[in-house]
């Protein structure tokens, strides 16, 4: 029996710090562990004893790329506990700031981190020498997304303008209006990038994922909806623990989330797209068809196409919201804190971000649970790595290593969020 071990001691072009251990025995992959060694960050332990007013600003610190996801899940959970309804233009502004986050996060991942894998470049810097136009458009999209986050969040990294009930300050029509031209240009860039990525040499693969995403009858999901799956789950977000559980694994400081009765599942762009195709506007559906996508996509390597399509959607949604904007009378809905438990679940760029908080009568946080998207996707990512490596066991380690890293980047993991990242070790026996 021959044993082969391939190690990637530090995975590049993903967020956070982790490694990959791959064990190959007698030509078969026996273990594919995404070993996350970034130390735990203790946010759930830090929050109890803090005021509800501090909640959005503390959870924003979980991630510099997707802070809005954490803020939105947190404020929705608090509003659930306090009986607050945020609707009308305030709700629309929340979708708009989420559009900003999707645009900047997807642009960064698609162009700067993931595209070099398909085109045979070691990084975006070398890729820019041959694909400068695409890189410029990616940077322009990131800037446009950041601009929306800055306008509505006060700043693009760790925004400070999000509060329970709405915002501390809302923009005037005049302040928001210039963003329409930016969003229109961003939409054109995103369509160009969609055609660019659709022509990439995309490896064949098909995985039988159980997709999990929010589903809202009237819109492609950002902030609200029921939790649904491709295998029939259809629950209120408060029933998460009925169907899902978090498990400790020895090789990761991030918990692994599983469906209790079936195991691994996948959240993120592929899941959102498959479960919410009908919620996309016809313009976006038409572009999906042009890009070669059906009503669902089970090839993880095509996630780059779906992610780019979601950028187009986010730009169109931003344009719609800006065009319809009438400043509301109040920047936030009034509320009084009360004792209770609240749940929030929103769609981070890389998948559902589920929160649960318990509050005392004065609004002090007494318990917090945060289930980030990357910890939910880890088991599926490991299964994908095993599938990728299984077809390459006789190849040199460098080939296996590159294919595995590419496989991981299909899912845009945010390891710091999960807390929770990559070195590759291949152990061949």
């Amino acid at each position, binding site marked *: 029996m021959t044993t082969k071990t391939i190690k990637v001691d*530090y995975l*590049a*072009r*993903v*967020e*956070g*710090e982790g490694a990959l251990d791959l064990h190959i025995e007698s030509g078969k992959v026996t273990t594919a562990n995404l070993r996350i060694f970034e130390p735990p960050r203790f946010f759930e332990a830090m929050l109890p004893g803090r005021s509800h007013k501090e909640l959005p600003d503390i959870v924003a610190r979980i991630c*510099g*790329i997707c802070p809005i996801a954490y803020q939105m899940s947190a404020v929705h959970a608090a509003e659930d506990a306090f009986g607050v309804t945020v609707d009308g233009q305030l709700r629309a502004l929340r979708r708009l700031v989420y559009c900003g986050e999707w645009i900047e996060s997807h642009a*960064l*991942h698609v162009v*700067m*981190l993931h595209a070099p894998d398909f085109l045979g470049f070691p*990084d*975006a*810097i*070398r890729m*820019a*020498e041959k694909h*400068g136009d695409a*890189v*410029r458009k990616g*940077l322009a999209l*990131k*800037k446009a997304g*950041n601009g929306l986050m800055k306008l509505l969040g006060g700043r*693009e*990294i760790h925004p400070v303008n999000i509060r329970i009930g709405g915002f501390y300050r809302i923009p005037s029509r005049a302040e928001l209006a210039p963003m329409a031209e930016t969003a229109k240009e961003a939409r054109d860039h995103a369509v160009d990038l969609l055609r660019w990525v659709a022509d990439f040499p995309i490896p064949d693969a098909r995985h039988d994922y159980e997709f999990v995403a929010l589903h809202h009858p009237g819109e492609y999901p950002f902030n609200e909806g029921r939790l649904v799956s491709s295998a029939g789950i259809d629950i209120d977000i408060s029933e998460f623990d009925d169907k899902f559980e978090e498990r400790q694994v020895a090789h990761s400081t991030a918990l692994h989330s599983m469906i209790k009765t079936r195991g691994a599942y996948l959240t993120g762009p592929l899941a959102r797209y498959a479960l919410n195709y009908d919620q996309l506007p016809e313009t976006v559906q038409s572009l999906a068809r042009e890009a070669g996508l059906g009503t669902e996509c089970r090839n993880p390597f095509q996630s780059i196409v779906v992610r780019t399509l979601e950028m187009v959607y986010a730009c169109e949604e931003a344009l719609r919201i800006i065009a319809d904007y009438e400043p509301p009378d109040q920047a936030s809905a009034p509320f009084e804190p009360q004792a209770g438990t609240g749940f929030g679940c929103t769609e981070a760029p890389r998948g559902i971000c589920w929160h649960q908080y318990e509050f005392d009568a004065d609004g002090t946080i007494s318990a917090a649970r945060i289930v980030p998207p990357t910890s939910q996707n880890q088991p599926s990512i490991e299964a994908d790595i095993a599938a990728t490596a299984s077809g390459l066991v006789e190849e040199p380690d460098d080939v296996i290593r590159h294919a595995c890293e590419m496989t991981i980047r299909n899912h845009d993991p*945010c390891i710091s969020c999960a807390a929770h*990242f990559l070195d590759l070790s291949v152990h061949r026996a």
Partner: protein
Amino acid sequence: MTAPSQGVLVQCIGNPDRRDDGAGIAVADRLAGCLPDRAKLLRRSGDMLALIDDWDDCAALVCVDAIASLGSPGTIHRLDLSCESIPSDMMPMSSHAFGLGEAIALARSLGSAPGRIVIFGVEGTDFSDGVGLSPKVSQSIDPLATRVIGEVATLLEETAHA
């Protein structure tokens, strides 16, 4: 301050809430009002990719930032990228976060990097949470600001005759 078209851009980078990482911003505070008309002063933090947007219309760039200690906190280092390469430890490519070295390399690939780039780094020693520079870094701020003013004058002259 509106900027020069084809002038010199001074980008001071840092986070004053992480002690010595605020050295660049402290230098910007000293430089405010002290630079000639064809120089533009910007304070920047966070996203290094966003720095590229600032470089569109400048002929020369001076960056000021804190750097990790090499054993002598407060020591000022000058890197002239017209005659020195970007050190490998400025190119980590390891996360969603891009560094200054990567931003410069990317701008060069795109053909949008300024013709001259000079980086001043001051060695820090305390990058913990909180406000206030460590004593040796604090003492280096005035001399560093003086060197930046001199560098800007030289670069303006060079670019005027280029």
